[in-house]
């Protein structure tokens, strides 16, 4: 019995030693893989690859580690999440491209739904543009497109309007201090003590304005989707109170005004092509020799859906070229044995952009069609969306479209103000347009 206890003790000791040896071995094995490099003069940071210490990723890792280990408060899951979001926002901000930005879960959902023709909110696609005001470049919030049938559409807001106030708050450009800086600089160039008080008052007023104002990116988000409550918007035209709602657009719709047949494309989704085909068959069956293709306020969707519409008019040609960093792709329009052979009036307005513009431009290459309306926006950026695990994501400009005729925007042969999608146009304009088109093919 005594012997047995002794044996177990020895065994335990042996096992302990073996464990300790292995533990030590494992530790030093791990330690050998590290390289210690002095960062500046006071800290030590470790990398797995000694060549990488100057790389951006290494710098970022170091910063992240220093914060992780030393920040005065405990960093909880929520704060880590906020750090990730603010990190992504910061990185994208550097690109100086308002189309590249962080999108939270809700916003990603809205973008994806919009591609199916489902919309929520007040129905304005905002657009940040830089304009010159008294020699200072400032960003202004424009109505890029008005989504057909939404609250803004019904209220009469139109593409190209400038949004001035949201819920009474003035919209501030990226650098709201520019004006104050300019006042100060002008004073410094021509100092005049008698005006010092006045200048000071002007600057104080600027600061007050900034304090009460709304940064343009927040304003953009606010009207994009954020609020569920009614929003009061003042544009350069009028004041509107818009109550957010949700609605679904029909991909395409047949209509007749004063005996003139209309094919209204409301949005470009997977189903638009099919529906356009159906309506064209109806026109053919009714022996129509022309119709109006309404592409006003058409902006979203995908180029595939645009191709599926284009094949009824200009099959076997090209929608344009998509140029990305790595490649240049010719966007071929599929074959179609029975395209529309009659005359065509294509309607565009300021709200027609991106795929709407590509489509209008491609179809107008055919001599039996004429473009009528307003000059389009000229927005040929291809935007991709990337997802994060938290349901959020970010958008990035990943390419540019080049039109078949290399045009920078779509310029109608007959220019006229023409209102929003679905609104009839003057009969005399239609007659004039028809006289422009050469005979049927």
């Amino acid at each position, binding site marked *: 019995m005594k012997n047995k206890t002794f044996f177990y003790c020895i065994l335990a000791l042996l096992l302990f030693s073996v464990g300790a040896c292995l*533990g030590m071995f494992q*530790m030093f094995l791990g330690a050998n893989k*590290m390289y210690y490099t002095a960062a500046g003069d006071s800290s030590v940071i470790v990398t797995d690859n000694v060549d990488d210490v100057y790389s951006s990723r290494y710098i970022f890792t170091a910063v992240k*580690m220093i914060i992780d280990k*030393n920040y*005065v408060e*405990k960093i909880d899951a929520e704060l880590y999440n906020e*750090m990730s979001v*603010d990190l992504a926002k910061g990185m994208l901000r*550097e690109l100086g491209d308002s189309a590249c930005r962080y999108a939270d879960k809700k916003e990603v959902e809205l973008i994806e739904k919009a591609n199916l023709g489902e919309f929520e909110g007040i129905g304005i696609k905002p657009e940040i543009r830089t304009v010159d005001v008294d020699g200072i470049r400032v960003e202004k919030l424009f109505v890029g497109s008005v989504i057909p049938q939404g609250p803004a559409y019904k209220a009469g807001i139109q593409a190209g309007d400038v949004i001035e106030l949201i819920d009474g708050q003035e919209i501030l450009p990226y650098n709201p201090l520019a004006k104050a800086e300019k006042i100060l600089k002008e004073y410094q160039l021509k100092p005049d003590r008698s005006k010092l008080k006045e200048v000071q008052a002007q600057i104080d007023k600027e600061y007050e304005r900034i304090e009460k104002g709304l940064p343009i990116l927040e304003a953009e988000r606010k009207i994009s989707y954020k609020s569920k409550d009614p929003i009061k918007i003042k544009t350069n035209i009028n004041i509107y109170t818009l109550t957010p709602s949700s609605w679904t657009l029909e991909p395409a719709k047949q209509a007749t005004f004063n005996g003139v047949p209309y094919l209204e494309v409301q949005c470009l989704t997977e189903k638009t092509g099919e529906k356009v085909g159906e309506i064209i068959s109806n026109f053919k069956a009714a022996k129509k020799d022309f119709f109006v293709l309404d592409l006003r306020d058409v902006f979203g969707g995908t180029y595939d859906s645009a191709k599926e519409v284009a094949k009824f008019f200009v099959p076997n040609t090209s929608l344009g070229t998509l140029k990305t960093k790595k490649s240049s792709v010719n966007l071929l329009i599929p074959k179609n044995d029975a395209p529309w052979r009659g005359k065509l009036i294509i309607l565009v307005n300021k709200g027609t952009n991106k795929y709407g513009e590509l489509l209008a431009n491609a179809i107008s290459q055919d001599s039996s069609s004429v473009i009528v309306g307003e000059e389009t926006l000229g927005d040929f950026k291809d935007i991709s969306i990337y997802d994060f695990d938290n349901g959020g994501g970010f958008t990035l400009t990943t390419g540019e479209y080049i039109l078949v005729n290399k045009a920078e925007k779509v310029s109608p042969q007959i220019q006229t103000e023409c209102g929003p999608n679905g609104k009839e146009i003057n009969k005399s304009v239609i007659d004039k347009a028809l006289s422009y088109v050469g005979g049927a093919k």
Partner: protein
Amino acid sequence: MKNTVVKIIIFVLVFLLGYQTPKFIYGAAKDGLYATLRNIPQRGTIADILRNDTLKVMPTYDKVMKAILDDYYKEADEKKVTYSGIHGMLTAFHDPFSNFYEPDQYKKMKEDNEGNFSGIGAVLQMTEEGQILVHEIIKDAPADQSGIKQGDIIIAVDEKPTAGRDLESVVKDIRGEEGTKVKITVDRKGEHLTCEPIRRIVHTINTTHKVLEDGIGYIKMSQFNQNSDREIDEALTDLEKNNIKGLIFDLRGNPGGLLDMAVNVSSRFVDKGVVVIIQSRGGIRQNLMVDTEKHNHKTYPLVVLVNSGSASASEIVSGCVKDHKTATIVGTETFGKGLVQSLVPLQDGSAIAITTAKYLTPNGIDIHKKGIEPDYFVEQSDDYVIDDDKTDAQLIAGKKVLLNKLGLLGDDELKDIIAKSDELKVKYEEKIAKKEAEEAKNKEKDMGD
């Protein structure tokens, strides 16, 4: 059978215990080491970071960067995107003192902190009229030797006019490599003169001293930097020769600087004990003690002048002398920055400053957002002219308080000061109470969300 299972379990446990022992010992030694290396970030490996990164900060970086580099339609600068990302990430902390400095910003900051750079040794100021004025000349510095005088207006640097430019860009042109010449055109009472100082390393002077009437010594420190230690020694040595009886230490407008210097300067006025308590994450406290070797001068009855511009290291010093009762604090409440930042330089020349600790005064008082409460509240007079002692109400009151401490002025003479101080003290307490109520309300609101 049961017996065997228990035995096996015990053996496995013993094995694991052995396996973990080296790490345990190593870890303990490591923690012990770092506890003494206050303010210096701990070591870690990338594997450590990934393990700690419970939530996607690294993956977010990688994902966004990959998308930008591979897919963005234009070329993007990886470094700039990273810097912008770091700036963004820091906003999550809502802490105005946690900052990232890009290489050029950090370089300038380092010059300011070290107090040394290659230049001409003139302190410049932008006048209200937008002119560049030579405000001060450092004795025997290149500017002094080349004939530039205090009060000159700099109108051109290397024949480039200064009109309409900001001070920073003019200073950038004046500073330059050691040993090079710079052509400075000045306007001296309508006369245009050109001087050509040769740039060299100049030490900016942040501590000035003088002897006031009644044998009172006066030291003003405008920043805590690496030279502060030497400067305060020199000032005290010089004042000692003048046989001063008491001392006024002026920290008004001093925005702070290096923590070590706050400890060293405090050590001149307090002979032993705690200078400041540093409290880092998880409430871990560390007492920074008086460096007795630095307690190398006679101590005098002391008055410290402070105002709302006295922040950080200034507040550490004034809090220390106040709690140790070795000085009387005169002025208005201080800025109230009770946080300590650590600055970590990175390989590419950039640096990150993050808040790594709170500090408490020796009596355990958190002064953040409250400031140090002076013993005598004294406001500056409305008609105060910079550097004019006659209009400096706080200095005048400080002198009276000091003379009273020295027994050279009766208590009656302080009556007015005390009456006014009590009035201001009530206002200060109201302000603090209001702030605290607001904070409590905000906290409630946060929790409600």
